[in-house]
């Protein structure tokens, strides 16, 4: 079985089989990062451009490490180092990059749909590393991987996502991804952070955090962006934390084996307390570790690799 997609733009366009194949491949990749020599020659001679138009440390590093562990040559472009600041359009930048024959372009962009715009116009594979408030497919895939690793399955699980659903690409991709893989997703946030029609993505909306954590197998907390306060989404961080923050007191209502996730970076003391973030239920650092393996798997698959990774 071969992986048929040229690009990874969102979770919607991946089938259940595609996602299973990606997760299985990523599982096989994990071992490479534990070797003393953390490098295999699989993608030697391949060029991967990391084109990040929005600031990012962890996602970019994760992609970069994934590329290097597979021996691909990766180069980084940021908004300030590209010609975007000189007024070049995204399509022109993509075409210019294309002329240098990269194999894969990883794009992070502030505008929803930006990766879709360039994917149609370049021969290289495009991997969406987060576009606007639309999608963050690699984050959702590594979250699926982390849950599967801890729980042994995804189907039948109850997943609660708490935070700014309106402005979260992570939430959108996870709602679609977990629902597609057979889990039940519930979201909760102040009314200002629940976008209209979100139920049509397949999730339920809970009015408060307490009513959606008591029976959850997975509790995913989203980062509250302080800069959003000016768009009148919540009165103060204090009030947000009181109503929607996850602390040890609140966690007592959850199932003892519930796992706590967060895409990072954390706002400790706002959406998540120190004790919960660092506690036994937290899989936050597993998510980061799995991120590298998952991105290695995607590079491998879009570059034309087959399912069998035993040979790596």
């Amino acid at each position, binding site marked *: 079985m071969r992986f048929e997609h040229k690009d990874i733009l969102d979770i*919607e366009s991946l089938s259940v089989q595609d996602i299973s194949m990606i997760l299985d491949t990523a599982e096989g990749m994990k071992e490479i990062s534990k070797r003393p020599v953390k490098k295999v020659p699989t993608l030697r001679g391949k060029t991967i451009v990391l084109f990040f138009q929005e600031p990012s440390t962890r996602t970019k590093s994760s992609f970069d490490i994934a590329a290097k562990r597979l021996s691909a040559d990766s180069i980084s472009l940021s908004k300030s180092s590209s010609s975007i600041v000189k007024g070049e*359009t*995204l*399509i022109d930048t993509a075409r210019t990059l294309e002329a240098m024959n990269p194999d894969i372009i990883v794009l992070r*962009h*502030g*505008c*929803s*749909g*930006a990766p*879709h*715009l360039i994917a149609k116009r370049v021969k290289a594979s495009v991997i969406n590393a987060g*576009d*606007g*408030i*639309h*999608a963050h497919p690699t984050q959702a895939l590594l979250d699926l991987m982390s849950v599967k690793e801890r729980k042994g399955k995804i189907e039948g699980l109850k997943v609660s996502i708490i935070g700014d659903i309106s402005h979260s*690409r992570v939430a*959108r991709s996870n709602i679609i991804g977990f629902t597609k893989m057979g889990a039940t997703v519930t979201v909760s946030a102040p009314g200002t952070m629940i*976008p*209209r*029609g*979100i139920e*049509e*993505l397949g999730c339920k909306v809970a009015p408060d955090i307490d009513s959606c954590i008591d029976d959850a197998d997975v509790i995913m907390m989203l980062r509250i962006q302080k800069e959003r306060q000016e768009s009148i989404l919540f009165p103060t961080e204090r009030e947000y934390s009181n109503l929607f923050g996850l602390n040890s007191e609140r966690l007592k209502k959850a199932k003892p084996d519930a796992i706590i996730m967060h895409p990072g970076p954390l706002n400790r003391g706002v959406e998540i307390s120190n004790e919960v973030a660092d506690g036994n239920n937290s899989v936050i650092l597993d998510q980061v570790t799995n991120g590298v393996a998952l991105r290695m798997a995607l590079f491998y698959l879009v570059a034309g690799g087959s399912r069998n990774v035993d040979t790596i």
Partner: protein
Amino acid sequence: MLIRFKGARIVDPGNIDEEQDLLVKNGLVHALIDPAAEDPEPEVETIDVTGMVLVPGLIDLHVHLREPGHEYKETIETGLRAAAKGGFTGVCPMPNTHPVNDNAQITRFIVDRAKEIGLARVYPVGAISLGLKGSTISEYGDMKRAGMVAISDDGRPVENSQVLRRAMEYASGLGLPVISHSEDLSLAKDGAMNEGIVATRLGIKGIPNAAESIMVMRDIAIAELTGARLHIAHVSCEESVDAIRHAKERGVRVTCETAPHYFTLTDKAVADYDTNAKMNPPLRTEADRLAIIKGLADGTIDMIATDHAPHSKLEKEVEFDMALFGIVGLETSLPLSLKLVQDGVITMETLVEKMSRNPAEFLGMDNRLIPGNVADITVIDPDRCHVIDPATFVSKSRNTPFSGMEVKGDVFLTMVEGGIVFQRS
């Protein structure tokens, strides 16, 4: 020289709807005669329009011709060529040119340039406020003398209600109507498409219906207060139609227009981030589309205008959030609107009211096809089927969401003051 249109059904609302031959002489409607009648003069040029529909020239109350200032998108000449090809004998260009049409010199430039070109009549709309900034009103009197027919800050609402009140009062005294782009900018802030499930799925910030309807209601309230003549531009949603219907029932002097895209498409057309489906107000839901059709059928919506808004590829082949709002419409309006007649929503006569008679009356013109009136005429071939192809547009811009759509019915001939400005070969 006498021109005889032979064999058409003449549809002139309130005047005539039957098969007659129409004679044109010296730029004027000369007579309507029985199809079997002999030519009244020896020298006659006969145009066979058997099976077609002949109507008073279509008038588009809402276009952007982009000159002066944005000639790379459209010029008065290319815009008027598109108008003639689309069956329009008259168009009203909005004032958001560069510089803004907020003074008589710009108005005069547009009028003079249009006269030189001569393909269609141009009735400029002037700015309500200087620079479209919403604070100081323009010299409406001077601009009216130069040919301005109405005022609007189209593209931007007048946010300050007191400024709008004063503009309405002042314009009323000069007999000028006010055309309102009704939008609450704080509710629409950063939005790029209709708020709803499609926007949520695509991760695009939405513009709710209320951003439009709130300001429609405010504008109606100020029109009621001042007694001014108010026209609501590009109505897109159900709540606005309802508000206008109630206002009309109360006797407020309000009229309104919609555009073909609002009764043809929904926000689903944006799927895959098609920037050619991005306009303001945005494409709404199916419920809104049906409400627009109902408003057209029951007479709440008086006119169909295009909001012809040419943009170059530079402004459309970009990220969805960055793309400018607007689509071209002059060359697709009639075929898209004829679908309403084919579907039995409105009669041909009502369509002619909405695309010709009502805009003419709004502008204070008598465009009936009666002897002595100017011969501005559109001949419609109701049976011509074709696929909309932007490559065939004569407008400078190609930004349409209708590419590839099959339509039935098209313009056969457009005549302005007795001269043929477009004829399909």
